[in-house]
């Protein structure tokens, strides 16, 4: 048997170019299959953990998905705000440990502007309850201070001390700028891979301040208040878009949720972000399945290549097989040689593919965060082992045809190949 293994090795080395290319095809297919699997999980986890540590998201009554879309992802617009009084009334519940108000509606060059309190930076969590971290500077303090998300700072090239102005609404309309009241960048957040990266954060009073001389969504003609003057007004907001709630004890979540949903002052909705995010993920799950189907197709192409190379190589190897038979090899040895070869190619492809994916998971952190993905898992799970097992079995199945043909050929040729 060891003689046969040595021969197989020498023979494979002799055909190293075509076998190497085949190995590469199988390797890439296995890498893609595993990579898609991991990215899929990472994307789902990252998405589901865009906000964590928050027990409830509360806004004016709408659909749960809608509420999460605008309050967490800053996509779309709230149909209604909720009043400051309602917020105060609910936040006073003894079961509630903390609450953070959110006011949305303005933007800066396509990035959402979020009016909130400094508490936001202490209570907001993402991923495995990771708190926000400032890469540079500090949390806003003065009225016209702003803290930028990582992506806002990098794509627009802002540094600490830069002045920015905000646009009313989504921006882009002339005359709808808050250009008379510039903000100073005092802090830049570290990347998180969540919507926070694409957000401009200012204080709630600042939201009030830039809208003092506005009415019904437009500047009041002839009235313009200088930035120094606005501080003299009462900057307590009258309404907010939504607020985040953290409970003292998680078991209270259903009770508090019911209380908010039955709030008499105005129609409100409280949702558990995880549940809503799951619902949202269902709608984008099609992409996930398409990606998976695609990687299976790539595997099929890789294995078809393996079969083609083996079949094409058979004629070349008929002499070799006849010689082996003359020195005592049986047709079963020939069958074994071919099956062994494709098995080893598949095995190597799987092992190297796994190695490559692990390497990517170990080194690709920064790259992935830029795409808004959570860190890829490094350890192999049972599901992946199953995938690799399928690749191996497919590799063996694919080699059956060439191996069977070689077996038939060596039976027919006997000791003298008919070339």
């Amino acid at each position: 048997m060891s003689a046969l293994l040595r021969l197989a090795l020498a023979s494979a080395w002799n055909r190293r170019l075509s076998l190497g290319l085949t190995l590469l095809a199988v390797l890439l297919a296995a890498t893609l299959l595993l990579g898609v699997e991991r990215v899929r999980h990472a994307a789902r986890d990252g998405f589901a953990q865009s906000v964590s540590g928050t027990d409830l998201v509360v806004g004016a009554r709408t659909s749960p998905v809608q509420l999460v879309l605008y309050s967490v992802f800053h996509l779309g617009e709230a149909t209604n705000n909720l009043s400051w009084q309602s917020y105060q009334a609910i936040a006073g519940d003894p079961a509630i440990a903390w609450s953070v108000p959110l006011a949305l509606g303005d933007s800066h060059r396509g990035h959402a502007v979020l009016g909130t309190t400094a508490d936001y930076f202490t209570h907001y969590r993402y991923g495995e309850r990771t708190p926000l971290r400032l890469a540079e500077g500090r949390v806003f303090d003065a009225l016209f201070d702003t803290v930028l998300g990582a992506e806002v700072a990098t794509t627009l090239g802002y540094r600490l001390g830069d002045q920015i102005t905000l646009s009313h609404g989504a921006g882009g309309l002339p005359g709808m700028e808050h250009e008379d009241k510039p903000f100073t960048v005092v802090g830049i957040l570290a990347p998180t891979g969540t919507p926070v990266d694409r957000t401009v954060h200012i204080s709630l009073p600042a939201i009030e301040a830039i809208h003092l001389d506005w009415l019904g969504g437009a500047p009041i003609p002839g009235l313009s208040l200088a930035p120094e003057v606005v501080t003299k007004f009462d900057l307590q907001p009258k309404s907010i878009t939504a607020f985040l709630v953290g409970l003292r004890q998680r078991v209270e979540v259903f009770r508090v949720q019911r209380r908010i949903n039955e709030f008499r002052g105005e129609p409100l909705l409280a949702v558990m972000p995880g549940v809503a995010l799951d619902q949202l993920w269902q709608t984008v799950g099609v992409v996930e399945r398409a990606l998976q189907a695609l990687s299976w197709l790539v595997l099929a192409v890789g294995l078809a290549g393996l079969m083609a190379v083996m079949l094409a190589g058979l004629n070349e190897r008929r002499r070799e097989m006849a010689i082996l038979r003359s020195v005592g090899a049986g047709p079963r040895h020939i069958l074994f040689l071919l099956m062994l070869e494709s098995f080893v190619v598949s095995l190597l492809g799987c092992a190297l593919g796994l190695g490559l994916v692990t390497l990517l998971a170990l080194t690709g952190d920064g790259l992935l965060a830029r795409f808004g993905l959570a860190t890829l898992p490094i350890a192999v799970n049972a599901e992946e082992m199953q995938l690799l097992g399928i690749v191996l079995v497919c590799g063996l199945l694919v080699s059956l045809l060439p191996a069977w043909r070689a077996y038939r050929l060596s039976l027919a040729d006997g000791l003298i190949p008919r070339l």
Partner: protein
Amino acid sequence: MSAAAIRIDDLAFRWRRKGPLCVTLAHLAVDAGKSLFLHGPSGVGKSTLLNLIGGVLLPERGGVELLGQPLGKLSAAGRDAFRADHLGFVFQQFNLIPYLSVLDNVLLPCRFSARRAARAGDPQAEARRLLGELDLAASLATVPAAELSVGQQQRVAAARALIGRPEIIIADEPTSALDASRQSAFIDLLLREAKAAGSTVVFVSHDERLAAHFDEKLALTAGAAQ
């Protein structure tokens, strides 16, 4: 060693069940240690006969008996093992596995047969000795077989057939790729080494002039050998 090394009686073989007979052979017997020249033009079923003697094919009728062992009584795997243990082959061309070294090619039978390896003593040394006897420079041992000339390749093939002193050596047109002056030299070398090893030689060729080198002679004719 007076028993026949090869004994064939009333042999018939056809490729397809209802096709014509490809090989018929009434009687053939070669005594141990003798050499036989089998003469036949191409197309008379020489290759088929060699496959029958090698135990790769089984006859429709009659039997092949090698060293007193009827091949038909062995399983396919048993015939493969028997071939490895007792037979050495030299073919017309393409005898060597091109990517293996000359030495590894000669050692191939020892890898498939423990008996051949044991009879060779130290297989490596024996292989080098045989290569030397067959006028191949020692420096060629480690060269890939593909780099040798045709004449050199045929002598390496002879060394491979001879290693481990198999009882029977079958040579199928081993000289047809050589020019006339080298044909005689090759046959003499092969017969000398076979005699030294005590092997029986069956030499197949279409070239009747070579018959003079051998103890016995048999002519094959199309469809039937007399």
